[in-house]
């Protein structure tokens, strides 16, 4: 099957490819709302969906640090050695105990600030996963159409990986994709590639790299790698308030959509974004080639009413009100560290809402 949709995760624990199960299930679920899927196979059987997993590159470092800290602590305690517990803060970084800071925020920190030792093998691994599948299909005599759906930090990872692929002649990207536009359509959900971009060189910057529509003018002789570029954001998604991704002059084959629906506490959630017809219809129609007619698409989009998850609607409304306040506080911020701070505040607020809801239900 030549239409391949690579799905890429964001920050958080994603140990193996099963992380994508809820995403694929959601794509199947939302697709089933349309006539084309009423009698036919689900979306995931009409296209090849391939999860891209890179979290092991973070988990590896965290597990090693946690292990070293445990070993040091054990010796200090057993031997009664009088030294300060200098690595105590690293305990709990290991996968099993990962929580809050260690599951989400630290991924961004490691990726953005720890340089080549974290980012380069991760990017090479992402390139390898994509290239391996594309080659497998091409070698099997197929015309391959490559689509990528990335969420949150995954948007930066995909951007940087493709930019690295293009930047390094020894990887032979141009020959690898000879005769085709490398990525037929890129779908970025909660795009943070601009706030996490490298300051230099220009070929790695979010608006300058090859990760832009092929129809835009070449930058430094390089043509864009993306056939169609769809960017989905949400007005209350805090990760989009710091250096939002808003290119200028990408009129052709560039589409930006800002959502306002609230489905659950997690307005940043992958599955929550995909629920909206303005997000999943372009994905389905690009990958499968216009199987949802325009009239049906317009009707479903206009009639979309999110089904609120959970019972604590009041708590949800409070959260939305707080997010509006938070957004004003962060307007115009540009630094990656602001994003990390904001992310921690957001997840803290979401956790509080969830706990209050649980208490309310129990009482």
């Amino acid at each position, binding site marked *: 099957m030549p239409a391949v949709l690579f799905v890429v995760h964001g920050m958080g624990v994603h140990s193996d490819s099963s992380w994508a199960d809820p995403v694929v299930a959601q794509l199947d679920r939302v697709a089933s709302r349309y006539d084309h899927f009423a009698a036919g196979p689900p979306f995931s059987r009409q296209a090849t969906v391939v999860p891209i997993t890179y979290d092991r590159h973070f988990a590896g470092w965290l597990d090693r640090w946690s292990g070293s800290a445990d070993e040091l602590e054990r010796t200090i305690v057993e031997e009664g*050695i009088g030294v300060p517990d200098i690595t105590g803060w690293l305990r709990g970084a290991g996968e099993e105990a990962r929580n809050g800071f260690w599951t989400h925020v630290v991924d961004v920190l490691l990726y953005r600030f720890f340089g080549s030792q974290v980012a380069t093998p991760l990017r090479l691994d992402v390139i390898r996963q994509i290239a391996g599948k594309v080659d497998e299909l091409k070698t099997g005599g197929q015309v391959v159409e490559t689509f990528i759906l990335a969420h949150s930090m995954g948007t930066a990872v995909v951007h940087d990986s493709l930019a690295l692929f293009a930047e390094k002649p020894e990887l032979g990207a141009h020959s690898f994709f000879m005769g085709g536009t490398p990525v037929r359509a890129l779908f970025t959900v909660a795009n943070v590639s601009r706030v996490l971009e490298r300051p230099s060189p220009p070929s790695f910057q979010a608006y300058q790299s090859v990760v832009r529509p092929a129809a835009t003018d070449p930058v430094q002789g390089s043509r864009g790698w993306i056939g169609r570029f769809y960017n989905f954001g949400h007005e209350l998604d805090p990760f989009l308030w710091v250096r939002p991704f808003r290119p200028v002059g990408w009129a052709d084959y560039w589409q930006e959509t800002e959502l306002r629906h609230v489905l659950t506490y997690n307005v940043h959630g992958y599955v929550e974004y995909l629920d909206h017809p303005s997000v999943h219809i372009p994905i389905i129609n690009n990958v499968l080639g216009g199987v949802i007619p325009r009239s049906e698409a317009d009707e479903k989009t206009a009639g979309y009413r999110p089904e609120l998850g959970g019972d604590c609607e009041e708590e949800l409304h409070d959260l939305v009100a707080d997010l509006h306040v938070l957004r004003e506080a962060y307007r115009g911020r540009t630094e990656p560290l602001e994003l990390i701070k904001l992310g921690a505040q957001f997840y803290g607020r979401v956790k509080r809402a969830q706990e209050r809801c649980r208490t309310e239900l129990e009482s």
Partner: protein
Amino acid sequence: MNAFAKGLAGVCVCAATLPPPAAAQTVREDCRFDDVMGLTADRITPRWQEWHPAAVMVRLRPLIDENRGEEVGRALRDLFAGSMANVPATARAAHQAELDDYGRMLDSLALVLRGFTPNADPVERVRQIDGLAADVPRDVAPQMSPDGEAEILRGEPGVHITLDDGHPSDVRRALCWSGIAAEVVINELGAAARTRTLAELDRLLGLWENFVDRGYSQFPWEVLLNRGDELRLDPPRWQRIVLHPSVGGEISGDALSRLRRENAILIEVFGLLHYNASRTSYGGASAVASITEERTPAIGLLGHWNWAALGLLARRGETPERWRRPELGIVLSLDLYDLVSGVPAEYEATVQRIRRAATAN
């Protein structure tokens, strides 16, 4: 046998015994790769069967296998021209501009393909591909748009062919089937470059795996310090050690008869390591402090050789001369210490086993 050859086999075997052919009705059936390759013989009119991409690929296979680009390019043009005989004159006239655009693209493609010459050397093949890749037209095969149209040459500025259900099926087939065959040809000719790319990625990932799994551990502040240039693809050859805590074993004393063995916390204050090319081995040295339960800290020099680390220590003596007559010792990394300190126990256990065996006899 690849997908095309399998498809062709189906077409050829079934064609003679099939019911009267039915014409394809939609642009999807005529242009979408899956649909075209999934066409059963009864959906292909006999006059189109020899132009089906699977049939075309079987004919071109020997030329592709020998990398005879010039002949492949000429064949693709001839095939397209030949398939035009299936397009009624009225339809041809109505869509002349699109057909001409596509024909010109095939001319350009044929010019580029001339650069692919017979060569058994994979390195030379890759060099050829690298030299020609940028000139190969983009998107010669049809791709379905989100609106359900087939787009050809979408990646080529100014030449964008869009086909929909309103186009005659014969026009769509002439363009789409030729396009599918042309793209598969390009894919086949580029196979050596893809193999090179994957091999290079595997090599680099292997180096990183070695560096991380077999290299010396680093704490967060050391990773920050050694973070290096993100545009470098391979792991660093040099690694700085800074304030690196670890567990080790210290053997020291003021005389050979009074040696003491203790677990210690080692703090490497600073140091430097160097890796071999495959990042499987490293060596280096660091300045180290050893802290034990009862005694004052010792300082010294720690040498690293892969997993083993061995160092010399000096500790302020207990006599009034203090540093003039320091207590000397050695320090070992945990792995080496376990190995060395385990020997007496193993020796003792072996002796006991032999004694028990002798007594039993």
